[in-house]
């Protein structure tokens, strides 16, 4: 047995970290092959840098408003006294100002991290609920399963936007609430069905039975065997959920139904309700809505692209070779 002493030369946690890193690298290498996935990732990174790094820096330096300052770049209360608003893009305001004199660029950047948070928060909730409910429903079956599946059918079928529109009429919905609502709704919705069917295929795998024969409990099996096996799919769906959440926020803000101080949808709403979106010709006040519109499409699309790239990681059958 003496040579066995050398078997484990490193502490377990180090090995695990290495393993995780190796697994990540491997998946990353597959992901990297997907041009579309990489495109999405780059876009997301650019947005993340803009929102989480560039904006705070700008706000703290160039855009810092002082007591005496005449120009304020606050995205919500900012106002440039020297301009006729909305003003064209200029050196001072690279994307111009909105009809009430606020800097469009600052609005765009200010909203970016919020959109991210909204999307990711909603997606996390979705995935958490979806994974838990999906695996538990699959594993235990019976009434529980039937109930959650019917519920999922229902939520899946109904136009989320319509639901949110009506809901927003009833109550004051802000970003966090919205993320919660979208997260919960879609968590019990389609993703549950997908993850459940994935969990069902895992559930009947022999390694589950092996574990049972060793005396493993249901809880252990669900969280040690089933959940890790549906996780990649959850992660994939998370990306699509982000798209959904950001898009819903934009639509509701556009319709003026959300209670947010600033967001991309609201920027478009401001230009539309002020009569600047489609005026004499559509591009006349382009800076009021093109940046926000583009940002929505880009970020939603980017997460979607990432999802598709991940799809090739998760689903080897889609890979080309």
């Amino acid at each position, binding site marked *: 047995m003496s040579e066995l002493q050398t078997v484990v030369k490193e502490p377990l946690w180090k090995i695990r970290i290495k393993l995780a890193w190796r697994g990540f690298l491997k998946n990353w290498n597959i992901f990297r092959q997907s041009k579309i996935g990489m495109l999405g990732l780059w876009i997301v990174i650019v947005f993340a840098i803009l929102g989480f790094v560039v904006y705070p820096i700008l706000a703290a330096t160039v855009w810092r408003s002082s007591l005496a300052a005449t120009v304020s770049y606050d995205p919500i209360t900012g106002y440039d006294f020297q301009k006729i608003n909305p003003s064209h893009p200029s050196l001072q305001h690279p994307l111009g100002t909105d009809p009430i004199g606020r800097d469009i660029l600052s609005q765009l950047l200010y909203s970016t991290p919020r959109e991210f948070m909204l999307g990711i928060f909603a997606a996390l909730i979705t995935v958490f609920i979806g994974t838990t409910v999906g695996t538990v429903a699959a594993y235990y079956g019976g009434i529980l399963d039937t109930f959650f599946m019917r519920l999922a059918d*229902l939520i899946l079928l109904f136009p989320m936007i319509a639901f949110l529109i009506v809901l927003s009429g009833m109550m004051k919905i802000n970003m966090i609430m919205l993320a919660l609502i979208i997260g919960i709704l879609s968590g019990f919705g389609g993703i549950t069905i997908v993850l459940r069917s994935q969990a069902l295929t895992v559930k009947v795998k022999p390694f589950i039975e092996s574990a049972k024969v060793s005396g493993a409990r249901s809880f252990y099996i669900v969280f040690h065997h089933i959940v890790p096996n549906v996780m990649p799919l959850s992660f994939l769906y998370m990306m699509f959920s982000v798209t959904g959440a950001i898009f819903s926020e934009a639509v509701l803000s556009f319709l003026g*139904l959300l209670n947010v101080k600033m967001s991309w949808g609201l920027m478009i709403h401001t230009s539309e309700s002020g009569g600047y979106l489609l005026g004499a010709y559509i591009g006349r006040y382009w800076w009021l809505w093109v940046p926000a519109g583009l940002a929505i499409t880009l970020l939603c699309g980017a997460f979607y692209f990432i999802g598709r790239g991940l799809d090739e990681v998760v689903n080897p059958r889609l890979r080309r070779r």
Partner: protein
Amino acid sequence: MGKYIGKRLFQIVILLVIYIAVVFFILHAMPGGMKALFISNPRLTPEAQQAILKAFGLDKPPLTQFLIYMRNSFTLNFGVSFSHYPTPVWEIIKERLPRTALLFITATIISFLIGFHSGKVLAWKRGKAVEYVSTIGGVVAYTIFTPVLAFLLIWFFGAYLRLFPLNQFLNPDLWANTSFSSQVIFLRLLLTASIIGAVILVALILSYRLSHNIRSRRLIFYIPTISSVVIAVFIWWKSPYGIYGADILWHMVLPVVEVTIISYAGIMLVMRDSMLETVKEDFITTARAKGLPDRVVRDKHAARTALLPVITNFIISLGFTLSGGIITETLFSWPGMGLAMYEAVISHDYPLAAGCLIFTGIFVLFAHLVVDIVYAFLDPRIRY
């Protein structure tokens, strides 16, 4: 088959009950719920408020309220609209439904066909530039901000090219002196569409039942299909209503284009994935080994089989399409259910909003049923 439909209908009823319960919960149990709104609505006299409270049983304990609400919903009694007081909600929905149905069904079918065919070709042309372009194009279409797209369409086709009317759903100049209302035309259009749809479906079934020969199958399918369309066009052409029908269709083009653009891509991408998986199946290799021409392998074997998961996904996308439809309706002045819902929310007309929501639910559930039946028909493995 009948038993299957019965079973599905039963499920639909169950789903509806849950759904109505959810709507009820949202409208009543929430702070500032229905009751508070009824009472604080300054547009109604206290008597009217009391009457409505009574009609909805809002003065009763919650459970009784719920049961009453459920019963009322199933008898299509969604109460009385605030903003159209005292018109019953059902009256408004009845008027809006055919319009939404026409727009939605047309757009859904078109986007399905486009998505199906383009997805098919995409998968077949894997790795070519066309794949990347269409995928990115598809995703952009999928994620483009719906209202912005609507404005672009309105501006480009309506204002700039002046190809299509700006907004609305009919031309007042033409309709100023008609003795009938557009509802008549909508219903006739829907009827025509359903008859053609039924003919196509019967032709499809017959072509499979009657013949095994591909060519004669095509004949059996295309002759009735094309002739029913031709006959329909001819009848409309000859009838005094023809021009009015054409006017409505003319106005429908842009909204349909919008809904199609935002929803075809989803189907396209799913179809592509499904095709890619199917192409790896052994029976495709077998079909090739049999010496079948490339097109036959693609269309008859790969696409036909890949269609099945796409249909499942299509059901899932119904909600999405409908959501897009709501935004489209509000922006294109298409007075359907979506617009009604939006207006109701804006004017705090909750009975109407709830009614629309429930009815949209019923609508989608039935669309679901139809798609399910089609699915069952397409997949021989499903038997009842």
